[in-house]
C-alpha cells in the first residue's frame, strides 16, 4: 500500500486497537496532533479511500469512526457465530417508530400500532442499547419520551438518522405526521370548508 503519511498510520493503528468507534476528538487525543483536528479528518478520508474495496472498511457511525468487515463477506464470517436473538414483531415495529419519529412517548407508539405495548418490548430495545429515555414531553402527565442511541446507528450501519432508509419519502408523504395533523392538512387542501374541529371528536 505504498508510502503512507505518519498521521494516517497513527489513526489507522488507533482505530484498529479501539474496541469501540471513536470520535475525531478521541482519535486526536491518542494520535497527539494538536490544532483543530483537520489533519485527523483528512487522515480519515484518506483511510476511507485506501480501504475502499478491501475486505475491511472504514465507516462513520454518528460522529464516530470504526473499521468493520465488508458487508458482502458476511457469509464467510457468519458461520460458527450464533445468530443474534431475533426481535419480536412488536419490538421491530416499536424500534422503527422510535427511530423514524423520535422522540416519541409510549402512548404515541401505541397510537400508531393500535395496541398496548407490553413492558418487555421497550426493555428489550433498551437492553440492546439501541433505545434510551430522552426526557419527558411537557404535556399533562409529563410522559417519558424515547429516542435512539449511537449504538443503534452503529448496529444498523447508519451514518446518521438522516440515513434511515426511506425517511425522506415518508416525510414527504406526510406518513410521519400524526393522523390528526394529516387530517387537518387534507382538510386545508381538499375540503376548504370542512371543519377541522370535528376530527378531534372521535378518538377511540
Amino acid at each position, binding site marked *: 500500500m505504498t508510502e503512507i503519511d505518519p498521521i494516517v498510520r497513527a489513526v489507522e493503528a*488507533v482505530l*484498529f*486497537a*479501539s*474496541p469501540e468507534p471513536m470520535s475525531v476528538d478521541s482519535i486526536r487525543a*491518542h494520535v497527539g496532533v494538536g490544532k483543530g483536528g483537520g489533519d485527523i479528518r483528512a487522515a480519515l478520508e484518506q483511510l476511507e479511500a485506501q480501504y475502499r474495496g478491501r475486505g475491511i472498511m472504514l465507516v462513520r457511525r454518528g460522529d464516530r469512526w*470504526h*473499521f*468493520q*468487515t*465488508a*458487508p458482502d463477506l*458476511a457469509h464467510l*464470517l*457468519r458461520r460458527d*457465530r450464533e*445468530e*443474534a436473538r431475533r*426481535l419480536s*414483531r*412488536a419490538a*421491530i*415495529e416499536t*424500534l*422503527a*417508530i422510535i*427511530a*423514524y419519529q423520535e422522540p416519541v412517548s409510549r402512548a404515541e407508539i401505541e397510537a*400508531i*400500532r*393500535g*395496541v*398496548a405495548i407490553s413492558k418487555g418490548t421497550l426493555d428489550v430495545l433498551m437492553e440492546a442499547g439501541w433505545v434510551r429515555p430522552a426526557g419527558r414531553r411537557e404535556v399533562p402527565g409529563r410522559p417519558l419520551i424515547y429516542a435512539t442511541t449511537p449504538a443503534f446507528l*452503529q*448496529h*444498523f*450501519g*447508519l451514518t446518521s438518522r438522516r440515513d*434511515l*432508509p*426511506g425517511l425522506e419519502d*415518508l416525510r414527504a*408523504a406526510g*406518513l410521519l405526521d400524526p*393522523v390528526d395533523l*394529516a*387530517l387537518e392538512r*387534507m382538510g386545508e387542501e381538499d375540503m376548504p370548508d*370542512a371543519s377541522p374541529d*370535528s*376530527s378531534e*371528536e*372521535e378518538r*377511540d
Partner: protein
Amino acid sequence: MTGEQLTLDLDGWEGPLDLLLSLARSQKVDLRQISILALVEQYLRFVDKAGRMQLELAADYLVMAAWLAYLKSSLLLPRQPEEEPDPEEMALRLQLRLERLAAMRECGARLMARDRLGRDVFPRGAPEGLAVQRKAMWQAELYDLISAYGRINARTRPVMHVVVDRQVMTLEAALERVSMLVGSRIDWSAIETFLPDGSERLRRSALASSFLAVLELARQGKVELRQAAPFAPLLIRQPAP
C-alpha cells in the same frame, strides 16, 4: 374471498389494527385505494367466524368490531347533514392509521434487512484496546510548603512555659513590714494602711500576704484584730502592754 383464507390464529396478530392491515393487504396493494366498506365486511366476518368457532377474542378486537359496525351503518345510511362525526372522515381516519402502521412496519423490515454489526459486518475480533492512564499532576504552592514546615515546628518544638515576671510581696516581707509598722500606730488602723505603694498587682499580692502575716502575728499575740462585721474593714493595733 381472500380474507376468509386468513387463519384464525389470533396469536399472530398484534391487535385489531394489525388484523385490519392484513385484511386490507389481501384486498389491494395500495392502501389509498382500498374500500373501507369491504374491509369492514371482512373484519366483521372474521370476528363472526371466530365467535362461531368459540375462539376467545380479546376485548379490543370486539371494541373494534363494534366501532366498525357503527361505521358501516353510518356509511350506508343516508347521511344527516348535521350528523357528527362525519362517517367519511371516520373512514379516512381509519385508512390513515392503516397507512401509518404499514409504513412503520415497512421501516422495521428495512432496518432489519440492513447490514447489521455482529451479524453481517464485524468489528475487529481482538482489538488491542486503548488505555487512558491517568497521571497525577501534583500541585503545591510554596506557601503550602513553608506553612507546613512552620506547622511541624510549632507542633514539635519543646514546650516552654514562660511565667511573666510579676511583683509580689512574700509572706516574710509582709511579716517584717507589718511588725515594724504596727509599733508606730497608736490606734486601730485598717490593714490597707500597712500596704506598700506600687502597682495594683503588687498591692493585691501585699494585701494577701499582709493578711496572712497579721493572722500569724495575732496567733503570736503581737497584734490585736477587730472587724465589726463580715467584709467590714479589718482593723489592727498593737496590744496594750
